[in-house]
Each structure stands twice: as C-alpha cells, then as structure tokens.
C-alpha cells in the first residue's frame, strides 16, 4: 500500500484519486503505524516551507518519514513535499528540512530574468540530467508536466534527475537511492504524470 503522509497541509483528494486511477491502493493518513508499515510513502505539500516543516514536525511525522526513508522505504516528495527533502529552505527566513537529499531551496527570483512571471505556473518540458532515473522509466525527455512554484532546489546537481528551463534551468526532479522528489505535480500532469506514479509503484506504462 502507498501511504500519503497527511500532516494537515493541503488537499490530498487528487493525489489519492491518481493512485486509484492507476490501480494502486493508496490512503492519506497521519497514523505513524500505518506510515511505518506502508510499502511506499508519498510526501505532499503546498504553501510556505516554514509552516509545512513545522506542521510535519509537530505532528511527529517528520521522524517517521525520515526513519522509513533511511530504512529503505521508497519515498516520493511532491512540490513542497520535494522541497522538504532537502537540508534547508530560504523561504521567509531559514528553515531546516528533512536532510534526506543534500541541497537548499531558494527563490527562483534570484536566478531568472525579472520579466518572467513568478510563480512559475503552467506546463513546462523536462530535460533529463544524469543517468536514467527509475521514476522516468515510462517518460520521454521533453515531456510536459505541470508546475506551480516560486522556490526551487539548488546545490543538488549530483542528485538531479531532470531540470526545466524557465529563464534558467530549474531543478524539476531529484533522485537519491530510494528517495525521489518532483517539483511538478505528477497528479496534475495528465497521462505523463500518471506514468511516473506507475513507475514509482513498479507498474508498467498506461495505455495512453
């Protein structure tokens, strides 16, 4: 079973539905026991990094997620959930993350031309970097995925699986051992996104 970490941040309806659509049993839960027993974990998140990191710690689930990931349970962080995997974020102050992947989260405004709009909202193409990432087993380079973000990871080149070009190359996906992160929303990226969730769950590509 896939357990989606529910720490009171954001709405998990689409994420739960997307796993149902690919025929994988998934549940959103904040129960530490269920999370510890799960075959795979998904860490979602929206909003500000500091609030989400605090909510994750106060719920006691930060340790549960970190321990499970260190023990080898496959973990997929999505959007802010991906940013939480890193050492720290500079969104309104400095906030520590889970430290599962080395790197920092910085405002994209620091790196892109001023005429480009922020947040980076919309469909943008993936450019693969590094070796073949298992998450992209069913995905072609150049595939479009849906982004909504104002911050992105930096200093994580060794673990970057894909970037997207928005005035500068922005970290789109990371991979380190059993830990994966997507800055975009696979659950909102149509059949391309569903195929990534299938790959994460060890399933074959979908029909379309």
């Amino acid at each position, binding site marked *: 079973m896939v357990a989606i970490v529910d720490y009171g941040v954001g709405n998990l309806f689409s994420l739960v*539905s997307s796993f149902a*659509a690919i025929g994988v049993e998934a549940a959103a839960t904040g129960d530490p026991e269920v999370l510890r027993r799960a075959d795979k974990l998904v860490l979602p998140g929206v909003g500000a990094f500091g609030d989400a990191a605090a909510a994750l710690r106060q719920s006691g689930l930060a340790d549960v997620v970190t321990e499970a990931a260190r023990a080898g349970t496959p973990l997929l962080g999505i959007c802010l959930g991906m940013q939480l995997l890193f050492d720290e974020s500079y969104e309104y102050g400095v906030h520590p993350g889970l430290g599962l992947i080395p790197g920092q989260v910085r405002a994209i405004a620091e790196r892109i031309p001023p005429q480009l709009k922020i947040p980076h*909202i*919309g469909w*943008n193409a993936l450019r693969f970097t590094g070796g073949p990432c298992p998450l992209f087993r069913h995905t072609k380079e150049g595939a479009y995925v*849906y982004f909504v973000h104002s911050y992105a990871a930096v200093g994580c080149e060794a673990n970057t699986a894909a970037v997207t070009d928005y005035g500068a190359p922005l970290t789109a996906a990371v991979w380190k051992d059993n830990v994966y992160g997507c800055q975009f929303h696979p659950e909102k990226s*149509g059949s391309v996104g569903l195929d990534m969730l299938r790959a994460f769950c060890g399933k074959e590509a979908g029909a379309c």
Partner: protein
Amino acid sequence: MNTKRIIPCLDVKNGRVVKGVNFQGLSDVSSPVELAKYYSDCGADELVFYDITASAEGRRLFTDVLCETARTVFIPLTVGGGINTVEDFDRVLKCGADKVSVNSGAIRNPELIREASRKYGDQCVVLSADVKRLDGQFRVFAKGGREDTGLEAIGWIKKGVDLGAGEIVLNSIDTDGVKGGFDLEMLEAVSNAVSVPVIASGGAGKIEDFITLFETLPRVDAGLAASIFHFGEVRIPELKKALRERGIPVREV
C-alpha cells in the same frame, strides 16, 4: 519555456454544462464529467468549472460533479461561481479543485482574497473580472455581468493582486459571445498592470483569434473559451498544431 495554456470553460448549472451568449439565453450542452474527460484527452491544459447555480441543491450537484471529475481527470481544475467565503474555498478544494476563482464575492469583500491566499497560497486564488467599457473607462461588473459596480477595472485588478490573487481571468463583456476575437486592448492594459499570469476570456471565435492573441500580447499566458470548444467550432488538437506552427509554445500530448 512555459507553454501557453488553452482552457475550456464549463458553465455548470444543476450538474450540467451550459453556455450563454452575452450571459443570456443559456442552453444545455453536455455532462461536465464527460466533457472534462474529453477535453483532457484532447490536450486541454486546464479546465475551469463555473457554478452558475444559486440553490443549495444545485451546489450539492455541482460538488458531486466536481468530485467525480477530479477522480478521472488529472489536469488542473479551477472552480468559480458562488465563492463568497473561505468556507466556500474549503468546500471545492476538498472535492479536488486546485484553484478557486473569486468574482462578485471578492468585490463585496476584498479581504476574502487576502484570507484565502494566506490559508491556501497565492497560486490557489484566481481573481476573475467581468469588464466592460463604460463612460470612457474599463468598468468591473458583478453578478455574471449584470451589475455595474462602479469600480475601475485596472485599479481593482491591481488591488486584487496586492491582496494575494495569483492569477487573473479577464473576461471582456464587450467581446464575449461575439466571436470576433479577444479584447486585445483591454488585455494589454491588464497584462501591463500586473506581474501575475493573465488568462484571456471572451471573444474567441476561431483558431486565428488565439494566434493573434499570443502574437500580439506575449505577456498573456492562456486563452479561455467555452462554446467554440463545446460545439466543435475550434478543436483543441488543431488549435495547438496551428499555434505550434507559428512558433507559439504549447504542450504536446
């Protein structure tokens, strides 16, 4: 490079899709769930569900339809219509909406934009404005375009962005339903005034109207339309192919 988005809008009343011309004379078109799936398969980049029901029963039908759509369609869903409180945001977000658009509710209570953007993030709050030329200015209308608010549109939209709106849908009442092209003059004024994404609405009648929109106003991020998609006058795969051939970046599916 971010792609330009093509967004079909589904006006929903009592759980069915309708579309009026100049907001009058509505006619039933199809099932929202079926239509949403069809558009998603065709390459629509996002969908807008607009609830034009006033009754509690209609609201319930709407959220049922929204939930059912979010279970089967995995592209961004924006919901608007009857959003007056943060509780209304909560109601539709729990049913799978990604963004919520406010219009009359925000005109009555601009703080709604601030409260909702603090709670759900700027990216979640879309300010939709129905705008018409009146007395030599762009004027904001409320209640589906029926009521002159007296508000000057550019000032209102800038205020909305300052309060936390993360995206603007600009619907020109002057060009809506006429199918003579988007309101380029109005769109230029708005897209020059704000730094958040602007979605053009009202007036598209053919593929060339979208080409003209994105070539003339590169700062406009998306084109929204309803009946031309519903009645098959413009087909999204052909529209995207035409845009791509003109060098306008669009998502391929």
